[in-house]
């Protein structure tokens, strides 16, 4: 129980902390924004849980997997909006970016936070587990908070040294990793057929240990990724980078050609 609770925090709470830290640094956000996002996400998460029995019956029992995958896809697409906002640096656009970031946090809270509600709801029906759950919760929260703080300091330093595009890149890598992590949901319900393993690095960094979980959240690391996951990761990571770089070159060359 205790170990499961800690693993739950590493798998489902840590991504929320990481995204919050990255966005907080990238947008130079305020505490008010942070609290509003958390409240909105928690409310959406509760609504999702309330309707989960109905959702479970949609699309021949695949509703939950589809909804979770779609939420990760939207988070990824919103990351691209963030990059667009960065390139059009106007005051009104800055406000829009706060909304975009808030939506990213809310969607992530729905997809990851719902697991918490289901998990604790499942345990509340059992006796003699409260102590294990509490200890696991404190341990898990402690790990997430300390990693979050370290990440905040690192991201802050990166932004000072390399500018906001570097922090956007961190968010982009994170969102791509989360999108790829959600692909097995579609394989699970046979919507895609992509189970051939590309390689196995279990002996170096296993999925089941702490570094495996950490790299999985930060980079989308998988010890045994499928070929589909590798292809999606490469394309989802590089195509937006290439596109924005090309757009930037085009903008520079046009402004250079102006009389």
């Amino acid at each position, binding site marked *: 129980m205790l170990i499961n609770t800690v693993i*739950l925090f590493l798998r489902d709470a840590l991504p929320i902390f990481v995204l919050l830290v990255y966005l907080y640094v990238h947008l130079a956000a305020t505490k008010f924004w942070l609290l509003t996002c958390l409240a909105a996400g928690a409310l959406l998460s509760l609504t999702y849980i309330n309707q989960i029995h109905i959702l479970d019956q949609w699309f021949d029992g695949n509703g939950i997997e589809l909804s979770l995958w779609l939420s990760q896809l939207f988070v990824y697409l919103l990351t691209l909006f963030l990059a667009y906002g960065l390139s059009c640096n106007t005051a009104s656009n800055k406000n829009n970016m706060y909304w975009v970031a808030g939506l990213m946090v809310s969607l992530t809270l729905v997809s990851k936070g719902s697991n918490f509600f289901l998990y604790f709801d499942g*345990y509340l029906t*059992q006796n003699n587990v409260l102590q294990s759950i509490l200890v696991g919760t404190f341990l898990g929260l402690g790990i997430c908070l300390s990693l979050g703080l370290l990440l905040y300091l690192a991201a802050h330093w990166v932004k000072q040294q390399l500018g906001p595009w570097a922090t956007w890149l961190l968010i982009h890598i994170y969102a791509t990793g989360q999108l790829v992590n959600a692909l097995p949901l579609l394989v699970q*319900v046979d919507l895609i057929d992509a189970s051939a393993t590309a390689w196995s690095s279990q002996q170096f960094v296993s999925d089941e240990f702490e570094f495996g979980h950490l790299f999985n959240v930060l980079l989308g690391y998988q010890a045994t990724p499928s070929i589909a996951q590798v292809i999606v990761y490469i394309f989802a990571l590089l195509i937006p980078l290439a596109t924005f770089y090309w757009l930037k070159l085009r903008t520079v060359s046009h402004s250079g050609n102006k009389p």
Partner: protein
Amino acid sequence: MNKVLGCAALFLYLFCLPVLAAVTEYHVQLKDHLFFPSLISIPANQKVKLIIDNQDNTPEEFDSFSLNREKVIFGNRKATIFIGPLKPGEYDFFGEYNPNTARGTVLVEYQKQEEPDVN
């Protein structure tokens, strides 16, 4: 334009190839927080369908690191999970809400006609 269409077709082929062959089903019951059977033998290199019937009143989460599968099965409901194709070996799964009791293994082995020819 032709290159774009070709890439799109390749993408669709890789990820959306329809499965025309029937998939073998394996039924697992979850009762009193125990999986029955707890050992499921499936053939290697084939995709199979696991149908898990949760006969308890409380939800359980079918979880497996090695199979990379995670699915909440609500009380008195069934859920379907596709696994495979897998290489021969043992793949553990457990119920996340009752990990001490709800445990099982998927044993993947070559069927007799599929065994590699050692000669």
